[in-house]
């Protein structure tokens, strides 16, 4: 057993020296291995131990095991198990450390498959891969997670390490010359997220030479108080000779230049050797560690975008079913696209953060929260606020979130403090603290301030920075309690100035029951901003609200030189409302994809035409005409889609009209769509969806990479018998076949005579009609148009 541990090293040593490259040593030795270099742990243990030994002799305090790629995916065809390779790897390293104080770090690299949303590997599956490695490496002294390019994958690894061991964790990512990783992660997001998750040191490895890492290291250190790690490559490899460009002495000098950023641990990556470690040791002998406290204010982030709360920032409130009929319907129908549209339009409106609340009695809120968070993060970089009253929903959301989120919320009740704050700490989030408790909302500013104080104290006791607690002093309705507004503002002012916390506030409640609510809201917002409001939770698509925040930022001197303000309004000109009668007939407008004209024309038609006649005699024939022209190659696919979207605008007008006049439905029938298991290319399926939607069918879109059983279950639960499947690759056609087989075999989807109730239509690049029939489909649809034809044939009987 070692006499020292990592924490002691950290406290006692000026610098901690890591080792250099393992791969380079193996390559230079010419050692032959059949599958991957990790197999040498078993076939050539003495060789691997000798490399470790050379690094220790050169001065390394910590050596990394030869287990970088030792995960179940990469070792699949190696003939060895993860446990065999890793335990041998740790043993070799331990043997090398014999008689020294050097520590052994279990080295873990990326799995080798990309995670959702870009790839198909689920976050939860990634966690399982890492868990296996961490358990196999139980005899190591610490855990190193390195060469990561995806923060999401790294988060899975950190959680796996934290939950399956109590070892110190070092985490490093690899950045490109663009200053980001391959998946677009910024050094700032990495530093914030990893610090929040509670790793022991973080930094950069591999990437570039140390001469090019300054921007990365400088950015990281702004966002963390943790010691930084730099384990750079020896410059760039020559593509022909594979020799690296930076020699040991220069390497050490380049690392020296990075020390002022708080670098405490350093070593070498690709192309380095014991000579580089010796050079580092020599250089460090005459240097002092230079602590570099974080300089950024409190921040939240997604993987790509950091939002520093150093002035008012808008939180979009629209992803919330409360009082929104369409939103509730979308939740019940699993219509994730609807929610994504809300996310994107709020960001265009000016929101920098988005609140996400999917609480609704008819759905499984936990599952939905995970699904929605993952989906929003796949298209939107704004950091998110996870909003639920249920701790289990908060935890599920925190787990799958990529970055540092806000939790909405904790309050002064003991139960809330005891359940929510530990989650905030564990997952490294910020949290909204509501100034209410068992006794309700205190009437006075004093009472709310006291609760705020209590929340902050409890947070700090758990190690949560008070800057990460955003206090909400609660807006009450002014028409009911006129003087309450002043109490809210006073409490806000005191929290800001006396507690040094950030503040947030839902604004719209203030005007409930009054006419001209917008005016009251925006005035209240301005008053609150002046009292120190940092995070207004508003509808960013109301120009007066977003405008109030933007103008305030100019007037308070935050938006220097009014740059953001000018950027936002430079091109704004008063909207010209066209009252003119549409020049086109409804059919023509649909054909040409003229959305607003078509909607206008629909409104006019509704004055004297039956809604269903508009659908059946105008919209559908117009779409048919477009479809025919597409088939004859007279128009291009985007034009077909534009016409379909235009028809959608008309349907919306008709639906609104119908909901005013009665409850009649325009739906022509329900259809399930899914891209089959294993397949993540769903653009074809999405085109089909647009067309079916706009022909008036209700589409239940299960997304991509869909488990066959989920499709069957949905068909049974929702009583849907028309099912469309897409597959792009020959490798995933088997999933399509399996899905059809399960659909046919499900008793609940069979007629009394045992025949199947389901109609299955299929499509996809590699599919042929023969093959479609062979696997038991009813229709082979070459393109989106043919899918509509199939739907018509089946559902209009």
């Amino acid at each position: 057993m070692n006499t020292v541990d990592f924490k002691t090293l950290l406290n006692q040593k000026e610098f901690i020296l890591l080792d250099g490259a393992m791969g380079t040593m193996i390559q230079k030795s010419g050692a032959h291995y059949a599958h991957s270099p990790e197999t040498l742990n078993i076939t050539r243990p003495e060789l691997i131990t000798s490399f470790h030994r050379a690094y220790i002799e050169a001065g390394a305090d910590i050596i990394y095991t030869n287990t970088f790629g030792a995960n179940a995916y990469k070792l699949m065809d190696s003939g060895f198990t993860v446990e065999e390779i890793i335990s041998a790897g740790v043993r070799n390293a331990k043997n090398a450390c014999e008689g020294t104080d050097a520590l052994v770090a279990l080295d873990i690299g990326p799995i080798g498959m990309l995670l959702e949303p870009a790839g198909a590997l689920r976050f939860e599956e990634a966690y399982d891969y890492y868990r296996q490695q961490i358990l196999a490496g139980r005899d190591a002294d610490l855990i190193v997670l390195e060469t990561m390019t995806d923060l999401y994958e790294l988060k899975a690894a950190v959680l796996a390490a934290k939950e399956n061991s109590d070892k110190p964790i070092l985490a490093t990512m690899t950045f490109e010359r663009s200053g980001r990783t391959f998946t677009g992660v910024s050094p700032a997001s990495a530093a914030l997220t990893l610090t929040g998750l509670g790793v022991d040191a973080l930094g950069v490895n591999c990437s570039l030479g140390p001469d090019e890492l300054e921007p990365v290291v400088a950015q990281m250190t702004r966002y963390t108080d943790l010691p930084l790690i730099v384990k750079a490559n020896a410059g760039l490899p020559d593509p022909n000779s594979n020799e690296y460009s930076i020699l040991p002495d220069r390497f050490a000098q380049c690392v020296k230049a990075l020390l002022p950023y708080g670098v405490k641990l350093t070593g070498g990556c690709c192309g380095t050797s014991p000579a580089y470690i010796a050079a580092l040791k020599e250089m460090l002998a005459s240097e002092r560690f230079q602590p570099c406290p974080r300089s950024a204010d409190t921040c939240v982030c997604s993987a790509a975008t950091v939002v520093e709360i150093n002035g008012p920032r808008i939180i979009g409130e629209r992803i919330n079913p409360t009082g929104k009929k369409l939103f509730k319907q979308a939740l019940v129908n699993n219509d994730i696209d609807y929610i994504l549209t809300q996310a994107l339009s709020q960001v265009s409106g000016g929101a920098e953060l988005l609140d996400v609340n999917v609480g609704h009695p008819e759905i499984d809120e936990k599952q939905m929260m995970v699904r929605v968070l993952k989906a929003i993060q796949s298209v939107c970089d704004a950091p998110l606020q996870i909003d639920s009253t249920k701790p289990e929903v908060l935890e599920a959301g925190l787990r799958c979130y990529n970055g540092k989120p806000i939790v909405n919320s904790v309050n002064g009740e003991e139960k809330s403090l005891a359940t929510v704050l530990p989650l905030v700490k564990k997952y490294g989030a910020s949290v909204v603290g509501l100034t209410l408790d068992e006794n309700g909302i205190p009437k006075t500013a004093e009472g709310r301030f006291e609760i705020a104080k209590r929340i902050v104290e409890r947070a700090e006791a758990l190690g949560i920075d008070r800057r990460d607690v955003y206090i909400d002093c609660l807006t009450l309705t002014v028409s009911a309690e006129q003087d309450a507004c002043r109490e809210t503002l006073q409490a806000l002012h005191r929290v800001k100035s006396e507690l040094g916390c950030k503040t947030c506030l839902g604004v719209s409640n203030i005007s409930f029951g009054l006419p001209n609510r917008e005016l009251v809201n925006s005035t209240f917002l301005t008053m609150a901003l002046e009292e120190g409001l940092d995070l207004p939770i508003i509808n960013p698509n109301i120009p007066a609200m977003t405008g109030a925040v933007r103008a305030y930022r100019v007037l308070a001197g935050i938006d220097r030189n009014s740059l953001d303000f000018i950027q936002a309004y430079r091109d704004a000109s008063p909207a010209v409302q066209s009252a003119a009668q549409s020049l086109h007939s409804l059919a023509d407008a649909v054909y040409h994809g003229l959305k607003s004209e078509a909607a206008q024309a629909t409104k006019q038609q509704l004055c004297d035409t039956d809604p269903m006649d508009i659908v059946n005699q105008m919209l559908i024939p117009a779409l048919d005409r477009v479809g025919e022209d597409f088939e004859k190659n007279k128009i291009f696919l985007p034009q077909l889609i534009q016409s379909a979207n235009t028809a959608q605008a008309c349907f919306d007008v008709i639906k609104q009209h119908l909901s005013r006049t009665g409850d009649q439905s325009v739906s022509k029938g329900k259809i399930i769509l899914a891209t089959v298991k294993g397949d993540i290319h769903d653009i074809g399926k999405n085109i089909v969806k647009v067309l079916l939607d706009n022909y008036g069918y209700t589409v239940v879109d299960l997304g991509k990479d869909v488990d066959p059983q989920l499709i069957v279950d949905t068909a049974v639960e929702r009583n849907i018998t028309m099912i469309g499947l897409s597959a792009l690759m020959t490798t995933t056609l088997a999933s399509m076949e399996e899905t059809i087989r399960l659909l046919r075999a499900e008793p609940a989807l069979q007629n009394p005579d045992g025949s199947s109730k389901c109609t299955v239509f299929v499509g996809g690049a590699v599919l042929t009609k023969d093959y479609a029939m062979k696997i038991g489909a009813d229709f082979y649809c070459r393109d989106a148009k043919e899918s509509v034809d199939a739907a018509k044939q089946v559902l209009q009987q």
Partner: protein
Amino acid sequence: MIALEALDRREALRYLGGAAVEPNETMTRLMDGCEAQLLRVAQPKYLYRVVDLPCEELTVGEDIRRHLRGCDRAVLLCTTLGASVDRLIRVAQVRDMAEAVVLDSMASVAIEQVCRKADELIAAQFPGCFFTFRFSPGYGDYPIGLQKTFLRLLDAPRRIGLSVSESCLLVPAKSVTAIAGISEHPLERQRRGCAVCNLRKTCQYRRNGEHCGF
């Protein structure tokens, strides 16, 4: 590494179906916008490595053996437009599907252009040599499952962020892996016929009585 220039619109239009007509103004505007976005976010990268033949691990099936006949070495190549293009297309699918399909087709054109540039850059490293055309896993009887081997041999996940899913889909999606034979002697001119193409039964070009040109 490789800079993308103007994208071949004719080619993109063919993917979009309407080969019989000229694009109207709407289409042209749509394509202008999509091209600008693609050129802004794409981060084209390529990676290659030369292997000696015969190479058992890589010559699986009749078609590739025929393809590499007469070559003593081969170049393994992979290219990608990077993760940002996938994301761009994903976001467009929420915002505007019409734009999404144009982006998708133009990105397909872009990755082929990147491959052609990579071909030129690699050829310049081998003066006096002759190359076969690029042959990719999934062509003819060449197993799609070899994607994983290609990427491992090229160290592609680490070096250019290109990986493959369990069902052999490349991630990022707008990426290519391929092998081309190298010979010091002139090679019999091959044509990338429809016969070896696994899209031959569903091909848009064939449907329109055309040929993709490979």
